[in-house]
């Protein structure tokens, strides 16, 4: 690995400072905190939520987040009767600008194989119980569209500020494997 990098640098094909910047961006600038801010804004601002569901890339850009793997985004909303779950069965497609790079489990064979055939089993493994009458919609990211789940706002958060709400929103809830817990009932994940 070191040999490959030094060879490509020696041949002038890549610039080490650019590589550093690429890594730094993923480690420090991009990540699920971005998505959490989008979700919290949608919870407190009905007009923003409307824009987010109608044109996600534009609404997300309003908060300053933009990059490849997210130009064509769709936000799908969870509710009392509908639960959405996102997967990429063929590789690892994931909404980078709002969630960063995907966790290992999202790219792994167990998740990719089962999310489409046994979504309720996957949800149970994540400790997410759904009533029988809830409709599960699985989004298999087979093209350049990227999906973000807008989780349900939990009970007991009526008085919380947008910032406090954002702190409750987890990466897993925005993939759809978990719900956002009410404050004080944080899940063990």
């Amino acid at each position, binding site marked *: *690995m070191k*040999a*490959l*990098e*030094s*060879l*490509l640098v*020696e*041949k*002038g*094909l*890549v*610039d080490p*400072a*650019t*590589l*550093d*910047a*690429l*890594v730094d*961006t*993923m*480690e420090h600038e991009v990540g699920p905190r971005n998505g959490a801010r989008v979700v919290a804004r949608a919870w407190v601002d009905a007009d923003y939520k409307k824009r987010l569901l109608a044109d996600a890339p534009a609404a997300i850009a309003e908060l300053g987040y933009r*990059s*490849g793997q997210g*130009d*064509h985004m*769709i936000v799908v909303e969870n509710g009392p009767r509908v639960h959405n779950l996102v997967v990429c*069965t*063929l*590789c690892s497609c994931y909404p980078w600008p709002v969630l960063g790079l995907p*966790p*290992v*489990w999202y790219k*792994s*064979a*167990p998740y*990719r*194989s*089962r*999310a*489409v*055939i046994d*979504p*309720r089993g*996957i949800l149970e*493994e*994540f400790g997410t119980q759904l009533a029988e*009458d809830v*409709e*599960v*919609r*699985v*989004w*298999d*990211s*087979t*093209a*350049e569209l990227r999906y973000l789940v807008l989780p349900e706002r939990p009970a007991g958060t009526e008085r919380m500020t947008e910032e406090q709400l954002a702190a409750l929103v987890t990466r897993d809830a925005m993939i759809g494997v978990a719900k956002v817990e009410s404050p004080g009932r944080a899940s063990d*994940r």
Partner: protein
Amino acid sequence: MNGVHDMGGQQGMGPVQYERDEPVFHAWWEGRIYALNRAMRAWRKWSLDTDRHEIELLDPVDYLRMSYYERWLNRLETQVVKYGFVTKEELASGQAAPGSTKSTPALTPATSGRWLSRGIPSSDDPLVQAAFKVGQRVRARNIHPLGHTRLPRYVRGKTGVVRRDHGVYTFPDTNAHFQGEKRQHLYSVQFTASELWGDSASRRDSVYLDMWDDYLEPD
């Protein structure tokens, strides 16, 4: 191709292995290989579709055994030789051959912002006609291309309903193989769980896939 990467519906892969407080990269080299892949793609010798297909061409045993970034490393080593950036000998020795030409990096701090925010092109090109309408019942074609495809096996031959027309997108099956963009409409198509998996599946649940015109036929 009907490769091991086409995982939807496979069984026996075990439970999801969850890691708490997972770091973005688990080791220094993972970040480097991530960045090298992005920086080398900026030479525009291959597309994202070609990138994906290169991973699909891994030996299936290797595919399952390797970690995600091990696949990326393997791919990049293949690509830099295949596309003439380095020779096999240089790759083996880790040293540039004496007298070999030195390039100027395609991706620099000055150009990377624009390159990295450059999206995947799509459009509402009115000249490209949509073959299907929202609400229409369609069937995923029962085809088995030997090359790259984004039509998973588990949906082939199944019927669904077009729920949304996303506009016009590059067709990965040709683009991955340098056979042109063949731009065409892309749709969100809903397939019920019972259509895909039979009577034991929940009657309420569905899977939505993004499908190009060439993957579909009228039902």
